[in-house]
Every structure is written in structure tokens, then in C-alpha cells.
């Protein structure tokens, strides 16, 4: 079957199938950006591993951040099936020519941020990613099935962490509320610009890469999350939040902030990339040694 027939049949496109250049380029960009988000996303939470306040939480967090490295690996591998190389994609990340999710340009200022990132950021990621399990490109769709299972575990761990804080001391409750106040709006921005300003959505939908619009997914996330906040006993920082009988309607998102962070002017943009580059540069001699050793083995 040719590409259009496969799409029409809602079948999966596989690496050896013929595909339009635009489809290939769009997927490479999206999967790479997704992979980059996983590895940059290790930083804000990873910085709390050494400070986790109990050994159980330390183990949970270490395992979670390890999962994110694993997600990065599956996704770079999925991108490689489209004819690109992980090393080249990393160069594009390091030189700022490919992006990662802007959410990771916000700082994790306290321990409650670890739980809040799990609850809100992973929660939003799941809403974004579950439809990608049905993406038209087979390797991406299959990687997402496993990633979504792990993300859903992380989201519940984050919720449980926050629930513990919310039922804890006054200091712990304050810590939890402060983190939720800071992460709520950025997590809504994770779904991207409003539909009328999202020029690529129509094409991505036609190609079966995207299944729902940004605003649809954002609404789904809000509807799912508001009742969870009530269970936690924490408030969401939006006075306009109200239930209209069907959906939770939310207030105006600060799109100027969204654009500023996207442009590189968020609180941690420079720091995240600098840390990533430093790790890459510091490890260059190790990768060179591994290559040299492997080459000797072949000879």
C-alpha cells in the first residue's frame, strides 16, 4: 500500500515505507524535540535526588529520573529509524537549533516541586502523549505506549508526594501550595499556542501525527486536574476557574510569558543548555575512548 492508502486505512507507516519528505521532516523534528525534553527534563528534578528527605523518596525519584533517560533513549532510537543520527540531534539541541519543552525552563525551587512536576507536568504530558500511541508512524507510536505507562506511574507518584505534604505540617502544606501556584500556568502552556495560532496543526492531523487540537487537549487536562486539586486540598491559582456543567473553564493564559520562554528568555533556558553542553563536553574523551576501543576490536 502506498502512503496515502496506509493513512486512509489508519494503518502504521513503517521505516521502510515510502513517505513524503514533509512527513519525515515533521516527525524527525517532533520526535527529536520530545527526546530532548526527556533528557533536559532530568535536570530540574534530578537536582533533588541528593537532597530527597527520605530514603524511600530518594529511591522513587532516582528511578523516575532514570526512566526519563530511558525515554530519551527510546525516542532517539525512534528518530534514528527516519535516517538521522542521535549525535547530530544532540548537536542541534546544544546549538539551539532544535527545541525542548519550555516547561523545563522553570526552576524546581523546593522539594514540593518534585511532586508538582509529577502531578501537573507529567499529567499534562500524558494528556499530550496518549493520542501519540495511535500516531501514524509505527516506531513513534510503539515507543509512546511504554513511555505513557511509565509517565502515568510518575504522575501518581507525584500526586502521592503532594498528598503527603498536603496532610503534613504547616510548612509542608505551604511548600506544596507554593509549588502548585508556580507550576499551574506553565503546565497549561505545555499544550502549545491556542488553536487559531497553531499553523501546523491541520497538516499534522492530516498525517495522523496529531489526533486532537491544542485547546482540546488543554481542556481535557483542566477537566481531569481540577477535581484532583480538590482531593489534595490545594487551590489552583486561577480566580476564573468555574464549572459550566460540562467543563472547567479557565482564565486567560499569559501568552506573552509563553512566547518569552520559547524565545529563550525563561528563568532557566541558559542554565539548562549550559549544563547539558558541559555534560556532553566533559564526556567527549569517554566517548572517543569507547569508539577507539571498539575500532580496535574490529581490526
Amino acid at each position: 500500500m502506498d502512503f496515502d492508502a496506509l493513512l486512509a486505512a489508519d494503518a502504521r507507516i513503517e521505516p521502510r515505507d515510502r513517505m513524503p519528505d514533509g512527513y519525515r521532516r515533521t516527525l524527525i523534528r517532533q520526535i527529536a524535540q520530545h527526546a530532548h525534553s526527556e533528557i533536559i527534563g532530568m535536570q530540574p528534578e534530578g537536582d533533588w535526588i541528593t537532597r530527597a528527605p527520605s530514603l524511600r523518596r530518594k529511591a522513587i525519584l532516582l528511578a523516575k529520573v532514570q526512566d526519563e533517560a530511558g525515554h530519551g533513549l527510546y525516542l532517539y532510537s525512534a528518530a534514528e529509524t527516519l535516517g538521522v543520527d542521535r549525535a547530530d540531534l544532540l548537536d542541534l539541541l546544544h546549538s539551539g537549533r532544535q527545541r525542548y519543552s519550555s516547561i523545563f525552563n522553570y526552576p524546581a525551587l523546593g522539594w514540593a516541586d518534585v511532586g508538582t512536576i509529577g502531578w501537573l507536568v507529567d499529567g499534562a504530558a500524558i494528556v499530550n502523549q496518549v493520542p501519540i500511541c495511535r500516531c501514524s508512524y509505527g516506531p513513534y507510536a510503539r515507543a509512546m505506549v511504554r513511555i505513557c505507562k511509565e509517565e502515568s506511574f510518575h504522575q501518581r507518584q507525584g500526586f502521592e508526594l503532594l498528598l503527603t505534604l498536603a496532610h503534613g505540617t504547616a510548612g509542608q502544606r505551604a511548600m506544596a501550595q507554593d509549588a502548585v501556584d508556580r507550576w499551574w500556568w506553565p503546565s497549561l502552556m505545555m499544550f502549545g499556542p491556542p488553536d487559531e495560532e497553531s499553523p501546523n496543526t491541520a497538516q499534522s492531523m492530516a498525517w495522523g501525527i496529531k489526533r486532537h487540537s491544542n485547546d482540546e487537549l488543554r481542556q481535557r487536562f483542566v477537566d481531569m486536574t481540577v477535581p484532583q486539586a480538590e482531593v489534595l486540598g490545594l487551590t489552583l491559582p486561577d480566580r476564573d476557574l468555574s464549572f459550566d456543567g460540562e467543563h472547567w473553564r479557565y482564565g486567560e493564559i499569559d501568552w506573552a510569558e509563553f512566547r518569552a520562554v520559547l524565545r529563550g528568555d525563561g528563568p532557566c533556558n541558559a542554565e539548562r543548555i549550559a549544563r547539558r553542553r558541559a555534560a556532553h563536553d566533559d564526556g567527549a574523551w569517554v566517548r572517543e575512548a569507547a569508539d577507539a576501543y571498539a575500532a580496535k576490536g574490529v581490526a
Partner: protein
Amino acid sequence: MSLAGYVLGLADDALVLAQRTSEWTARAPTLEEDVALANIALDLLGQARYLLTYAGAEEGAGRDEDALAYRRPSSEFRNVHLVELPNGDFGRTIARLLVFSAYRYELLTRLADSADPTLAAVAAKGVKEVAYHRDHAAQWTVRLGAGTTESRRRMGAGLADVWPYTPELFTEESAALVAAGVAVDPVSLSEPWLAFVSGVLTSAGLVVPDVAAAPGGGRRGVHTDAMGPLLDELQSLHRAHPGAVW
């Protein structure tokens, strides 16, 4: 030494090296190595948690794993100096992992036959994990030793950095527990350990460093100046909220 004191030594070695290893998160040379180092840290943390819980129960003063990890001062930690040293570069990290996991492998292999059933069970589980750590470190030692001029230099330098801290691993500490068949005599581990490590170094084209031993004292609660900052980082958040449940 009491049984609780002996178990604390085993626990603290694992806890402190888990802490050091987790500092590599999102800093490793490759993504695969990020996964591997996190895995090693998790294994060691798991061993530490079983052992701390057991030490607390044996002590009988109502201290759980967190009371022992978060509310002891440096002078009550019984880990060897080797595990508290800063990571340094990847060469030193691998050198430390090689000598430590080779030691712990020999130790846990024998401890699996301990007369103490709890220690025997923890050791039997741990030795499988440590076998992988040792293998991982050995493979990197060979790759770095035989890779490039630069990697050979760094691997050699890392080994020279950690080697002075290895004699402490084999210092006699608990004769009564050894006699009772509960503890392993560390002196007996030295020979098989050296046989394994020098075999790896030979494959890597490296030699056993000729350096003087560091003074040691970790098992008695005397630590290097790296230990204070490590514990500050580990304990500060927990200590800032007395009585809180996490």
C-alpha cells in the same frame, strides 16, 4: 563491635556510594551511562535501606532507616573513606567503582553464608547486583585503559587517586563476630580482590599503582573533609522539618 555496628558499616558504604553515584544524574558521558549509573545508585540505595533497617532493629532504640540516614552526625557514620571521596571525572568514578564493587562482591559472596539469616539474605540478593556493577566497571576500565592516550592517562590517574583508600577495606574490625560466623573477616578478602582487580588492570594495559596507604578510620567514625558537605546535602532538607513525614 556490636552486630548493629557491623551492619551499619555495610549499610553506610552502600548509602554513601549511592549518594555519590547519584550526583552523576544528567551529567554522564552518554545517555546509556546515565541509565547505568542511576541503576547502580538504586541498587546500592536498596542495599543500604535493608541494612539500615536491620541495624536499627538490632540496636533496639527505635531508629528506622531515615533516623539513621538523616539524623546521625558524621562521627557516627561507619563507611570507609573510599566511598565518600568526591567523584572526580569519569575515570576516577570508574576506578572507585571497580575497586569498591570488587571488594563488595567478595564480601557479599561470603556473607551469603553468614550464621545470621538476615545478613545472609541481604547479601545473597546484593551479590547479584554487585556482580553487574563490577562487570560494568571492569568493562569501562579496559575500554578507557586501551582506548586513547587521553583516556589511558585519566584512567591511570583515577586509579592512583583511589588506590590509597583500598587498604582500609581490608582492616580487621570485628573478631568476635567473625568467630561467631556472622561477619566476614575483611583481611581474607584482600587476596581474591587483588587477583580480580589486577587481572582487569592487566587487560586494560594498566598497572597496580605504587602509592602509600591513606590513614583510614571510617569504621571508627573518623572521616575525610569530603564527608561533611556530603552529609549536609543528604540531610539538610530532612533536618529542616523536624517530625515531618515525607
